[in-house]
């Protein structure tokens, strides 16, 4: 009993690392741009495909694959604001946005996912692990690849939060999240911060995709279920609150992996959504959210 508890707990931690890489970026993008990026999971998939291209097609080392995924999704993410979101913003002027940004990123999601299908086909692609070997903990064994996911999440998210806390650009990002008008009045270049935030957020998902590729396989729709789950996580943590998303990622992942002891595993995926709906009814601002004003 205790042993399986420990085993599920460790699995939950690893899964939490993945969720955190994904959800923190999503929450950051929402906090700064006020846009829910429905296409977030497609950047996860693109990260996986870039890792596949680097390692399997070009025979480069695994680390290059991860780096390529980070750079590739970052550059792609840089284009999203100027090409899609800024033109819509200009056209809307001051009018209420309604569902339009959601619909826009939904369109981007469909476009990217089906483009991947057109380019790479629908096959499940195998990517060799970046690190091999298994860590034997006595009660359970964890593959080094899974530990790498957890370690990468820890390092990258620490770097992100340090960037937001100490770096001038990071401070500008937080200033825009607090009040974009005031930030602009202080001389912050809003389009630049918007583009940067979006690129950073999706690059985190891209790295997640590259690291998870050996565990999940890669196919065009691999990221979409994660996007839906990450919505639940960001709501739990309070939308626009990256630190809340980080905590919520681990709460959800651990609840999911422990649930296997109580309910059949095929119902595991329900937990996040049930939590989301209950949360929205009881406390819509999330566990750590700012008061909801709209």
């Amino acid at each position, binding site marked *: 009993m205790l042993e399986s508890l420990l085993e599920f707990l460790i699995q939950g931690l690893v899964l939490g690392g993945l969720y955190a890489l994904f959800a923190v970026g999503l929450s950051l993008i929402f906090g700064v741009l006020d846009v829910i990026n429905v296409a977030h999971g497609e950047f996860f998939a693109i990260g996986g495909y870039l890792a596949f291209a680097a390692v399997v097609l070009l025979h480069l080392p695994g680390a290059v694959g991860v780096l390529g995924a980070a750079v590739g999704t970052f550059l792609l993410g840089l284009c999203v604001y100027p090409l899609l979101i800024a033109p819509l913003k200009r*056209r809307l002027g001051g009018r209420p946005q309604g569902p339009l940004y959601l619909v826009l990123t939904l369109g981007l999601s469909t476009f990217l996912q089906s483009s991947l299908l057109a380019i790479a086909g629908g096959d499940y692609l195998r990517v060799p692990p970046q690190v091999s070997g298994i860590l034997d903990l006595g009660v359970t064994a964890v593959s080094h690849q899974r530990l790498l996911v957890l370690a990468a999440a820890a390092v990258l998210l620490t770097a992100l939060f340090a960037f937001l806390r100490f770096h001038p650009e990071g401070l500008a990002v937080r200033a825009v999240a607090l009040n974009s008008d005031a930030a602009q009045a202080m001389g912050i270049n809003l389009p630049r911060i918007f583009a940067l935030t979006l690129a950073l957020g999706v690059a985190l998902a891209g790295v997640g995709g590259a690291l998870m590729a050996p565990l999940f396989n890669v196919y065009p729709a691999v990221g979409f279920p994660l996007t839906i789950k990450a919505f639940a996580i960001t*709501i739990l943590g309070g939308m626009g609150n990256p630190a809340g998303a980080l905590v919520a990622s681990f709460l959800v992942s651990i609840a999911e992996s422990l649930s296997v002891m109580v309910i059949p595993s*095929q119902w595991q995926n329900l937990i996040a959504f049930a939590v989301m709906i209950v949360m929205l009814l009881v406390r819509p601002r999330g566990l750590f959210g700012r008061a909801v004003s709209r």
Partner: protein
Amino acid sequence: MTTRARVTLAAVGGAALLPVLLPHPFVLTIATQAVIWALLAASWDLLSGYTGQISFGHAGFFALGAYAAAAATKHADVSPWLGLLVGATIAAAVGLLTGFPALRLRGHYLALVTLGLAEIIRLVAQNWLALTGGPFGIHDFRSFPGLPDGALAHRQAMYLVVVAVVVGSVAVMYQVCERTSAGQAFRAIREDEVLAQTLGIDTTRYKLLAFALSSGFAGLAGGLYAYYVQLVSPVVASAATTSLVIGMVVFGGLGTLWGPVLGALLLYGLYEGLRFVGVVYNLVAVGFVIMVFVIFFPRGLAGLGRSA
């Protein structure tokens, strides 16, 4: 009679004539499904376009209607005509139940809750083997009785049944949205909910009405789909269904009802037609159309005539 009414009438007449003009099984299959999508798109428009309550869960209501109709006919031998009603009623009831919590939520939050709801419906459909048949879905149930037997004649009759139900439903929605005080209340809620309240509009009541009507008609579309396709699987509840519907509405023009109907017919035609070019390019095109229309023509086809 206004120009718009004439155009609508001409479009309806033209659509109804199609099986007579082109009695080809393939054309009929696509036309029938396009008309079903048109109903789903119109139902989404009533809630999200007119009332401004963004639902990302219409695939869920559609699937509820489809599953309820199919299960009622397969397990309880309910007549398909009654089955349509069962599907619509169950979807409307769940929509109404969703409406209550949704009263406290706006914009993004509502979209995400409805998305979560659809995902829950999909998971239940996939895992409740006894009722839903699991991943393989429900099949082998009877369709509308009394239709002609010949393969082509059957398709033609089926098409006419679908067109009749859809035209009737869209006409009801159009009446409600354009000719009644409820329609005015819907638009007032969309434009400014607080202002609507101060004007004495019972926003709670009208939001719930919009939820019930919209999900009910989405469920009706699901029932038609079930009896037409004769197979209901968890795929219909997937977010891709919602995505396609929202694309149709944006393409046609939010908040006009006839725009989404037109958008559904054209986009579904494009979607199926592009299968000839390459199986995967149709969704690339759908994604592209959605992005281009949202950015450059937020009013969709319906707004092209007017200045942006």
